[in-house]
């Protein structure tokens, strides 16, 4: 076990996974909320765009999306997010993860909206609130509360899905594992157990926390 730590940057890999998770979580929440609003909006074109967004990104394997965020944006469009290529790849990994999980955040929020009784929206409209106002004041606050459990599940999925960005060479946990597999195959069991424990430690609290939060914040009906 100790040779594993001497030979490979185990903590660096774990830290990278955490960084990817946190950043992608923030961005996917923002993008997902925007897409959800588009899907609920009165403008048909926006609704169509929102729906297409979800259909495209939810149905494509994450590996392809991550790879395309680097190939499409960096190679083709020439957008460079950092002169340091490892940082550049990391940032595009965050973009790929965010774009993909935003589709799930959107669906989680929509299911949160589905838990709101019809009367709420009707009441908002009857006191003259516009779409934007009723969304801001009435719908979204309740939708977020109702969506905590699915959002938590998205976050757990996101934490685990960060392993996919090994495809563009970001040095996170799966990268560590494939490197160990190549350089020191006898350590494979150790590194797997270690990584598994790491992910259990990372994700189970998220599940417990969101479970508790959703009970605490549940809208009393």
């Amino acid at each position, binding site marked *: 076990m100790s040779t594993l730590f001497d030979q490979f940057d185990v903590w660096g890999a774990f830290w990278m996974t955490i960084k990817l998770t946190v950043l992608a979580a923030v961005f996917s929440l923002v993008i997902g909320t925007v897409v959800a609003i588009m*899907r609920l909006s*009165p*403008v*048909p*074109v*926006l*609704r169509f*765009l929102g*729906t297409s967004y*979800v*259909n495209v990104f*939810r*149905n494509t*394997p994450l*590996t*392809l999306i991550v790879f*395309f965020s680097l*190939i*499409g944006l960096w190679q*083709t*469009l*020439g957008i460079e997010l950092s002169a340091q290529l490892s940082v550049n790849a990391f940032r595009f990994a965050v973009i790929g993860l965010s774009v*993909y999980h935003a589709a*799930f955040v959107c*669906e*989680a929020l*929509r*299911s949160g909206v*589905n*838990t709101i*009784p*019809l009367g*709420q*929206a*009707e009441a908002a409209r009857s006191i003259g609130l516009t*779409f934007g106002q*009723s*969304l801001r004041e009435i719908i979204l606050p309740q939708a977020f509360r*109702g969506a905590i*459990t*699915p959002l938590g*599940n*998205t976050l757990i*999925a996101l934490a*685990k899905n960060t*392993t*996919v960005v*090994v495809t563009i060479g970001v040095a996170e*946990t*799966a990268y560590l594992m*494939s490197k160990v*597999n190549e350089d020191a*195959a006898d350590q*494979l069991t150790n590194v797997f157990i270690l*990584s*598994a424990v790491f*992910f*259990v430690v*990372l*994700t189970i609290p998220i599940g417990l926390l969101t479970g508790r939060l959703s009970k605490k914040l549940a809208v009393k009906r």
Partner: protein
Amino acid sequence: MSAGVLFDAPGPKAKVRHRLLGGLGLLLIAAIVALIGWKFQQQGQFASAKWKPFTQSEIWNSYLLPGLQGTLKAAAISIVFAGVLGGLLALARMSSVRPLRWVASVIVEFFRAVPVLLMMIFSFGMYVQYNVFPDAQRPLAAVVTGLTLYNASVICEVIRSGVDQLPSGQREAGLSVGLSESQALRTILLPQAITAMLPSLVSQLVVVLKDTALGYNVLFNELLYAGNNASSNYSNLVPVILVIAVIYIVINYALTKLAVWIERRLARRGRTVAGPDAMAGGGLGGSATGPDLSKNTQAA
């Protein structure tokens, strides 16, 4: 609730505004698409040499179709195994025997927490080291192992939440006609729960199908792996990946549609837990039945 109730029917002014907004949105998208297209063009990604292979049978017969077959095979085997194992785990998790419940919970929580990719890489390494499975089948076995373990625990939870959402009278009625707890579970609750959760089980199939793409890490001949080989031969990486993405989207979109269709049928029979999808008009996603469905369409 329906999206329609979020806003009033648009008046003449609002209609103009919506058209304007819509037009602007479309223009923006068109501009972005055009920019990407132009840049692709500049880099020669539309060069006929890169796309010509797709008009010939070789790339399909030697690469993509066998790859697609691998993807579908792994997905089909995994979903069957995951369904069976998930059902067993659900039974164990809801059983009246405490240790059984406890063990099942630990298994489910563990495999839900560990990334599928890690499970694939690890099981592949193990099969190689201990010579389990014939060599040719090892990548498939590793892919199926990873997908089965993860999806079985998700399916277990889907079934459990389906049972939780059934009216408690169902179980009580079963007990009162003299069924034991486990009999009531097996003959009354589970059949209803599984029918009710059918849509989310189908959308789990989308997850499985997408996740087979991780198999190229363990050298499994699925669509992505085949595409990699193809692009080495024709030097057309970007076109190949675009085509592969379209194939995935088409298949998965069809599966999602199937899930929605099943859901509607069940809703007509009054069987679903959450009632019909109120957003039917614009609802193309699969998460319309409320939190549980979207919860289970997570994770790729």
